[in-house]
């Protein structure tokens, strides 16, 4: 699953981690596309950035 969690560069990894209630390593793994988040976490991240879910996370079947 592709994502652009840090494309806008307006938040640190630790800041986002504490806002969505996960560890910094989980945000790091998300950013590196090594971890696909649960639907709930994906919605929470989108909510923090005030953007629709599909703008933060994209799914490609490859």
């Amino acid at each position: 699953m592709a994502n652009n969690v840090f494309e806008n560069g307006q938040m640190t990894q630790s800041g986002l981690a504490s806002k969505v209630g996960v560890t910094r390593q989980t945000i790091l793994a998300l950013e590196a596309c090594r971890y696909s988040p649960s639907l709930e976490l994906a919605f929470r991240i989108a909510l923090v950035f005030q953007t629709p879910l599909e703008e933060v996370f994209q799914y490609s079947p490859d």
Partner: protein
Amino acid sequence: MDISAREKSIWIELIITGVVSLYFFYSSYMLSGWTQIASYEMGVVVTNVIILSIVASIILYGLFDRETPEEKDERDLAIESRGNACGYYTLTILCSILIAIVMLSEGKVLLGKTSVINGPVAMHLVLIALMISALFKQASQLLYYRRG
């Protein structure tokens, strides 16, 4: 390398499990080739194992794990669950092999030859299976933390 407190803790567990198990199996094999359980020397070995694991825990956690433990998030729980599954499958396979070995060994008795698997040896083999499955569990968790 960016390593979380939980990952560090698993590394420490892995090292302690490895060191303590190696000491136990080496010492008990040197004593009697794993053929005895209840003896004064085995009591000393078990006491040493307990002391060694406590001392190793104090030293390793004191040196490398000073951070406040974070609450487990969904990724930690997912990795823990996959690690547990890996450990469980390993234990199942090893126990099946052990059962086969015991059955073949009993077959030897029926043929009039001496069985090589007695109670204490079987106990040691079960302990080895438990140790290997614990090592597999911890190693797979570390692998999942690195590879996702």
